């Protein structure tokens, strides 16, 4: 390394205040990853019946809620705000307008997730009357403690302020550089935040207008189809909120690690614009099997969903082309021979490439999910978590971990403790996920449901295929264990890195794209146009379904009850499970004379309840 390079300032040197916030955001993210991983391993071993000694099956849902919320709310979004702050400040080459505002949104996010986290974890103890075993989707009329909803609202407001912070900084930059194109990374940050504002408005409305007042006893009931639909209005674009930081890294960082340059800057912009337009008017594809939503609305959502494949397919092309360009510059030749010249020993590179590979597999299972009628086969089976452990669980999570090995030294001036451990860790994640996710998809085809403490039933056996239910359970357990070990290595590596002394010479640069921003039509940078079109598409996709739902069931639903999960729920549940345990006997009776049998079942439930 030349002396000139060694003295090149890092991000830490140029923007020390911002670097501090980014570090805090990443550490929040990694803390959540650690918690999520602990709940993940408990869950894997419990569900597959390898080890059920640690928790009761009724507590499994507390574990599941914690795993979901800590992984997909805290881990992903804290990483996002750190990465976006870095990308925006770096690409605009100026500090944020007011660092106190920055710390304010960070503080709000931490406060919000702490409130929600406490309400979930309180479910493990009977000492406090609090619990939020409603899973990540919190479908009413199952009701969590008010703290759960309030925390989510505070957290979301924090992310809104973060977006405002970035927009203000960009506007300040624009005043100084009126004729310049928006730098690519800033463009990605701003478009992603536009999507987030549109998407999260619905879940915020659902929480603030319905769920929070209802949990506080201010309103009697809610309309379950309405709150569910508002959740999925947010619930699909949120997956792109997790994914866009990974895309930002694949587009702007991965090519430079490979020694190349981004193939096309304009196409990258087109891809992000497509996500702004298409990621929200598709949420109903999570509700293909919902009664109360007409088939036509489902079909519109399905069509939009399929077109949403387009930006991801374009990304696959651009990323591979950019990496190939890097490989050929390093002397690679041949149809596939260039692959050999890539920096496979670099965990940042290998991790992101493996993440991209897994994303392709996840894309294929996603096409099945999106196919309205084949979805009947796999809806709410463990196929679905199998799918999203490839997307958010690998494409996103593994990219974040890999990127950490590249970005952390630049925001701390501390070299990574061990790149070998890093390489081992990312490969281990890939192997673990390949095992676990593949087996989950296979079990899903057998009809094994997701979100259950005990997927084996007393009254029937699953069809035998793909090696069978039991064998697939073992694959899931091994895969999950490898993933847990990989996470421990990752977190250990980060902690040991924090103990390293600060050095100089860790700066990395990002070369400009082969086809630069001046090739892109100006209209791409006119964000108001895209906000306008996105809103029109959302109205087209959602106005009629929402009107129909409210018209049918009313704002507060057709007299649906309230089922708080923290009041005596466990005791009641245990009684009823005991009742269903005797149901084989009841079934035999019922088979002989179903009317008598039904009466017997009803009586036995009352006796045990």
């Amino acid at each position, binding site marked *: 390394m030349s002396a000139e390079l060694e003295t090149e300032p890092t991000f830490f040197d140029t923007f020390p205040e911002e670097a501090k916030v980014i570090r805090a955001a990443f550490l929040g993210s990694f803390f959540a990853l650690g918690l999520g991983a602990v709940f993940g391993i408990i869950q894997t071993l419990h569900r597959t019946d390898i080890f059920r000694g640690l928790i009761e099956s*009724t507590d499994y*849902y507390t574990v*599941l809620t914690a795993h979901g919320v800590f992984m997909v709310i805290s881990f992903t979004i804290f990483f996002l705000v750190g990465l976006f702050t870095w990308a925006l400040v770096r690409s605009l080459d100026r500090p944020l307008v007011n660092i106190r505002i920055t710390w304010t949104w960070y503080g709000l996010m931490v406060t919000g997730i702490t409130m929600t986290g406490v309400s979930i974890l309180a479910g493990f103890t009977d000492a406090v009357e609090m619990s939020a075993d409603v899973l990540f989707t919190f*479908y009413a*009329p*199952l009701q969590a403690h008010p703290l759960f909803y309030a925390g989510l609202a505070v957290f979301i407001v924090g992310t809104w302020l973060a977006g405002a912070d970035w927009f203000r900084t960009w506007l300040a930059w624009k005043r100084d550089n009126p004729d310049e194109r928006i730098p690519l990374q800033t463009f990605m940050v701003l478009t992603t935040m536009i999507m987030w504002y549109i998407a999260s408005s619905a879940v915020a409305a659902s929480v603030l207008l319905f769920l929070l007042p209802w949990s506080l006893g201010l309103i009697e009931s809610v309309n*379950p189809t309405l709150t*569910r639909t508002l959740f999925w209005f947010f619930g699909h674009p949120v997956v792109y909120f997790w994914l866009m930081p990974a895309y930002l890294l694949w587009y702007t960082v991965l090519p430079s690690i490979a020694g190349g340059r981004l*193939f096309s800057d*304009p196409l990258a912009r087109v891809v992000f614009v497509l996500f702004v337009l298409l990621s929200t008017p598709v949420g109903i594809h999570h509700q293909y*099997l*919902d*009664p*109360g*939503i*007409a*088939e036509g609305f*489902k079909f519109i959502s399905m*069509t939009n969903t*399929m*077109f949403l494949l*387009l930006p991801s*397919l374009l990304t696959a092309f651009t990323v591979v082309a950019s990496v190939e360009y890097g490989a050929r510059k390093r002397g690679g030749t041949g149809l596939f021979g260039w692959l050999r010249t890539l920096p496979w020993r670099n965990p940042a590179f290998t991790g992101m490439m493996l993440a991209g590979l897994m994303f392709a597999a996840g894309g294929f299972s996603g*096409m099945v999910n999106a196919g*309205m*009628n084949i979805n009947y086969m796999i809806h*709410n089976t463990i196929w679905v978590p199998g799918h999203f452990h490839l997307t958010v669980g690998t494409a996103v999570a593994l990219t974040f971990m890999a990127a950490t090995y590249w970005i952390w030294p630049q925001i701390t001036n501390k070299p990574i403790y061990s790149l070998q451990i890093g390489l081992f860790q990312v490969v281990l994640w890939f192997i673990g996920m390949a095992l676990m996710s593949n087996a989950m998809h296979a079990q899903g085809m*057998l009809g094994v*449901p*997701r*979100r*259950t403490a*005990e997927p084996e*039933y007393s*009254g*029937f056996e*699953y069809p035998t295929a793909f090696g069978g239910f039991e064998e697939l359970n073992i694959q899931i357990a091994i895969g999950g264990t490898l993933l847990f070990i990989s996470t421990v290595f990752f977190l250990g590596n980060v902690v040991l890195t924090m103990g390293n002394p600060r050095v100089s010479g860790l700066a990395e640069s990002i070369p400009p794209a082969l086809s630069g921003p001046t*090739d892109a039509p100006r209209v791409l940078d006119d964000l108001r146009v895209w906000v306008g079109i996105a809103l029109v598409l959302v109205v087209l996709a959602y106005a009629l379904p929402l009107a129909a739902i409210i018209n049918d*069931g009313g704002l507060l639903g*057709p*007299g649906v*009850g309230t*089922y708080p*999960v923290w009041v005596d*729920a466990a005791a*009641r*549940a*245990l009684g009823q*499970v005991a009742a*269903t*345990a005797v*149901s084989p006997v009841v079934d035999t009776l*019922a*088979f002989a*004379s*179903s*009317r008598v049998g*039904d009466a017997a*079942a009803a009586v036995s*439930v009352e006796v045990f309840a």
Partner: protein
Amino acid sequence: MHIHAYEKLWLAFAVILILLLIGSVTYGAVGPGVAMVADSEDQIDPGALDEDERFAEPRVEQVGDNHYAAYVIAYQFAFEPSPIVVPENSRVTLYVTSRDVIHGFEVAGTNANTMVVPGEVSEITVEVGEPQEYGLLCNEYCGAGHHGMEGKVHVVSEEEYANLNEGGETA
């Protein structure tokens, strides 16, 4: 804006793939006739199912030539009736509703699968084949006892079905 020739090829491939996928779903709907669960049924008061003509007594009944209707209630943590007994080689329209929270209704290993939402009635029609016992399970988390929520669907021979119904007017 400059688009590389390979990019154009790839773009064309992507659009064709998307159109094929949409086409295959459309074919599934109009060809084999796979209909989606929809809003075909009116709202229902989940607190007053025992006053409802269809759900006061969850049951299977004949509604047409080789066509049967099953009225099923899902609740924490069971299905009623269980087993759901239907004759072989018939068409069965399932009407499923919930007395309390959101549930799932899945006949394991088949595509008979729907969400069950309180206040709504899910309607799906399935074709059943030879006599067989199927497992029925709830595939949406519905509370702490969710994993114990199961039932059965029995497809029986026509004679057996007739015998079962001799004792009473419903099955």
